[in-house]
């Protein structure tokens, strides 16, 4: 054993401190989102993305920028991407009427750089489609939050549902906040990542809740706050092991999965860490704040007996 897990950590002693920390992080995230905004990719903003590779190693980023400047395409950003002579170019201008738009860019660029330029990936998204993708993405996240809320409400009590959903919103806001802070690009795969984070964080929360419910039924005299401590401790090694295996897989994608999956795996890594933290320090304390006791659970049983 590298680290021995003390099975009697008093998590409840830290609730207040971590809740305040989370609150600060959330406010900070909202603040950044409000003032800095998100770096939306072409999926959501429309425009043209070109991943290019120059055949010769010669041309540098400044020359590529110069060449694009001469083409008068409005706002163009050029960034290094992955390997040495790979670049990613984003053009805000949307040209749907000219079918030779991409080809003419390639011709001019090859000419200016004196090198064959290989367009490895081209994405061209019109304003109508990008608006729809944005709407669909937000809809998907909202629906999945609602579906989780509903599922937990059916399986547990409404207080559990509330705790889980607060933890989820906490995870999503902070993850998005980190993306805003680091100016990482938000594209379709990030939406997929956020949804998976929602699923994962829920997964983690449910395991603890399940134990809380079981312990509430089992120990009729112990106060809820101690029950929650006990439940977290009982499930702690599982929480850690699963987080570690998931993170191992994610780090493998992050390091070896290529440049395209970088953003996706980064979001997932953040999400798993935040999700694990929130299951313990956000979702569970909400149960205490909402006054969950043995009675909350037995009410459920009474209903069954009545019927």
């Amino acid at each position, binding site marked *: 054993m590298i680290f021995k897990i003390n099975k009697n950590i008093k998590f409840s002693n830290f609730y207040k401190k971590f809740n305040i920390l989370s609150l600060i992080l959330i406010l900070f995230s909202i603040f950044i989102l409000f003032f800095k905004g998100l770096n939306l990719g072409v999926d959501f903003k429309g425009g043209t993305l070109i991943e290019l590779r120059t055949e010769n190693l010669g041309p540098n980023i400044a020359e590529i920028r110069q060449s694009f400047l001469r083409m008068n395409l409005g706002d163009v950003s050029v960034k290094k991407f992955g390997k040495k002579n790979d670049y990613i170019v984003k053009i805000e201008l949307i040209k749907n009427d000219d079918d030779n738009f991409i080809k003419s860019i390639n011709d001019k660029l090859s000419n200016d750089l004196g090198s064959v330029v290989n367009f490895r990936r081209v994405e061209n998204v019109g304003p109508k489609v990008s608006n729809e993708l944005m709407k669909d993405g937000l809809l998907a996240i909202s629906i*999945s939050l609602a579906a989780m809320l509903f599922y937990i409400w059916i399986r547990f009590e409404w207080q559990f549902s509330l705790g889980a959903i607060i933890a989820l919103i906490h995870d999503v806001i902070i993850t998005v906040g980190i993306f805003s802070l680091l100016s990482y690009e938000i594209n379709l795969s990030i939406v997929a990542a956020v949804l998976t984070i929602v*699923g994962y964080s829920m997964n983690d929360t449910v395991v603890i809740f399940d134990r809380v419910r079981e312990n509430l039924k089992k120990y009729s005299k112990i106060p809820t706050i101690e029950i929650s401590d006990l439940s977290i401790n009982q499930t702690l090694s*599982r929480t850690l092991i*699963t987080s570690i295996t998931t993170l*191992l897989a*994610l780090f*493998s994608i992050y390091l070896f*999965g290529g440049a395209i*999956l970088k953003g*996706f795996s980064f979001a997932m890594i953040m999400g798993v860490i935040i999700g694990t933290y929130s299951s313990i320090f956000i979702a569970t304390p909400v149960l205490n704040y909402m006054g969950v006791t043995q009675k909350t659970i037995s009410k459920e049983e009474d209903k069954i007996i009545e019927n």
Partner: protein
Amino acid sequence: MLYFSKLKLFTIYFIIIFLSLFSFANLINNDDNFLLSKKVNLGLDLQGGSYLLLEVDSNPAIKEKLQNKIISLRKILKDKNIKFKSLKLENNLIFIKILKSDTENFYNYFHDKENLINPYFNNYGSYEMDYSISENESDNLIKIKYSKFGIIEIKKTILEDSLEIVRRRVDEVGTKEPTILRRGNDRILIELPGLDDPNRIKNLLGKTANMTFKLVSDTENLFGSEILSYENSDDKINVSKRVIVSGENLINAQPRFDNQTNQAIVSFTFDRAGAKKFARATSSNVGKRLAIVLDNKIISAPVIREPILGGDGQISGDFTFQSATDLALLLRSGALPAPLNIIEERTVGPDLGEDSIKAGAISLLIGFLLVIIYMFYKYKLFGIIADLSLIVNLILLIGILTILEATLTLPGIAGIILTVGMAVDANVLIFERIREEMKIEKSNIHAFDSGYKKAQSAILDANITTLISAIILFFLGSGPVKGFAVTLGVGIITTLFCAYFFARHLTAVYVMKNKENHINL
């Protein structure tokens, strides 16, 4: 929880072997066998290719239809003896001024289910056209427009016709296994695997390819002629509006080389009706120029030297052989009923696809090894059981993806890797629970049995929540993201199967053999 009936065991291992067959069929080429020829398809982001989303612009077609309506309306009003003062088209609205006394007459005709101008759609319970009346002193102003369902019906027809033409054009270019699907009311989705430069297809789809033959007119006549410019230059000439023959009458078109000039040309053949019209027009207009007009641009305007009676002809212009080939292709496949706009385009080159596959495979392998080693380190013998279960899990996952003929995308591979990381969770939950139970229970069998039982609800709840995410992602995600949802969702199902049947059986075998011994978990 530790007892398995023979039938159950048979079923479990039958499923595993059955799915493994499909899984391994991916490795060998076995196209003859109809069962094992199924394969996981690679998405465009992995094999390279182009994705195009086209939107049909039906406005010009609607305008044209309204213009035709006006012509028939004028005729009908005359036949019915309904007097009207003016009849004109503005902003896709037809305006008619009718005497008050004639309004009812008009109304009755317009709403007769057998009328010739305003068809009634039984399936919608609606007429094709709507109208509103504003009253004036002596006459009424009637505004006619397409009803909601009229527009839907027009768009539907246009989309269906466009789909057919697009299919013909793409097929003629000869890319391998193109996918062409309708999306919603006015969109067409095209996937072209293996195509790294969609420029030619884009150019071919960007033209409606409406070809007409018209006479060049000498006098400028505002009503009978219009000024059109050439396709390849800024020159303009005056062309009569009357269409002699249109592309609809073509039955064949081929690129050729002119024997004398060695220039690329397009030779064409008219059908019988077209040949007749063409013969009549060329006979009576020898010495005049004939303009060949494509999408309102003049391709060429040669002088008619002699009557062309056989229905064969040729178009010479400033063609390269490629552009002659493309024009012939467009003429053969027919005109689009409406212009198409490309509203989304994604192209991945084949070398990037290959790089992505490599990167995906390497990260999958490393992630897999790391998890396997970690599980062995944590649980020793039971770690090996969890690892075996993980391997079977992967094989089953690939087997199911193969049966579904699912499309594997780069995010899809990420989904598999993520499944690897999360799949051990079920076994971890169970093992941790058994550890706890072993502290209370003296009997190994009881400890394992209640460990499995008590972990059940947590495992189920935890996996269902992830499954919910995957399902939502599947329905609302697009393209590569859908691939991620599929692998994640299927991964959850195989995970549950492996933990609850395969790993449990291995565990049961071990526990039964070591009933009395100390089990180190």
